[in-house]
């Protein structure tokens, strides 16, 4: 069994208002020098296979069809031992 990890982030050119708000809160806590806070999402799942290549293809298809929005988001795929 393999574990798939998909990390979805807003594309660099898309304004991240949530990241901006969190950055402001971090400054309130004294982390004055923090810059470019951006918030993404991580999705994990177990895949009942040992074939890393097939798993990678499957994860890519899932990301393209549903898990990420290609208009505003980029994604990265990682495969780990489950």
């Amino acid at each position, binding site marked *: 069994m393999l574990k798939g990890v998909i990390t979805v982030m807003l594309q660099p050119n898309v304004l991240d*208002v*949530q990241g901006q708000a969190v950055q402001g809160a971090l400054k309130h806590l004294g982390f004055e020098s923090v810059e470019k806070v951006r918030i993404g999402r991580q999705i994990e799942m177990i895949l009942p296979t040992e074939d890393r290549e097939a798993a990678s293809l499957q994860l890519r298809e899932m990301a393209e069809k549903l*898990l990420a929005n290609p208009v*505003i988001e980029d994604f990265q795929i990682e495969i780990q031992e489950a």
Partner: protein
Amino acid sequence: MHCAVLVFPGSNCDVDLYKAILQIKGATAEYVWHTDTDLDRFDVLMIPGGFTYGDYLRPGALAGVSPVIASVKKAANSGKLVLGICNGFQILIEAGLLPGALLPNQSLQFICDVVPVKVVQSKSPFTSSYELGDLLRLPIAHGSGNYYCDEVTHQELESNGQIAFSFPPENNPNGSLAGITGLLNEQRNVLGMMPHPERAVKQWLGSTDGLGIFQSMLDHHTA
């Protein structure tokens, strides 16, 4: 004109939309659950507002891949009229029937208000009852209505006349690119909009400016 009102887990403007349709003489409506796929008996398809699947993943993302949406895509491609309001607009975008994306409002606040909305395109099956430049008073109620697309897409939308409604520059409540808040597909048989026309169909609701959408669709159907 027989209208489908699509209902998903988390839809909450379905009853308002159903009742708004019945305000128009010659229009009938029927609820359709999201697992149904036979939409042949309908003349037009409407997706109401709400919080389908709790807005999990992204607003409209999970509804956008539900069984009924495959049928909506087929119907849209065959020329049938499809209207998505608020979460319905988000679903149409996630389903790929309209370009761009709807991001969280720039203020990060959920906005519930009645705002001026400008008619930018009156030559469409949804907006023919209005005059170009009309300023409508329509309710908005959303957390993610901040329209975004890349510059190339924006140019295409402008040159194809696909922008149906926009917020005036001096009153852009959610930060949408160029104030865009109503969008047609290239063939102009699909409209998505963040404002709620179904909540503006009686004077005692504060406005009747939403009726024009439904009247335009009926006029198109009977023409």
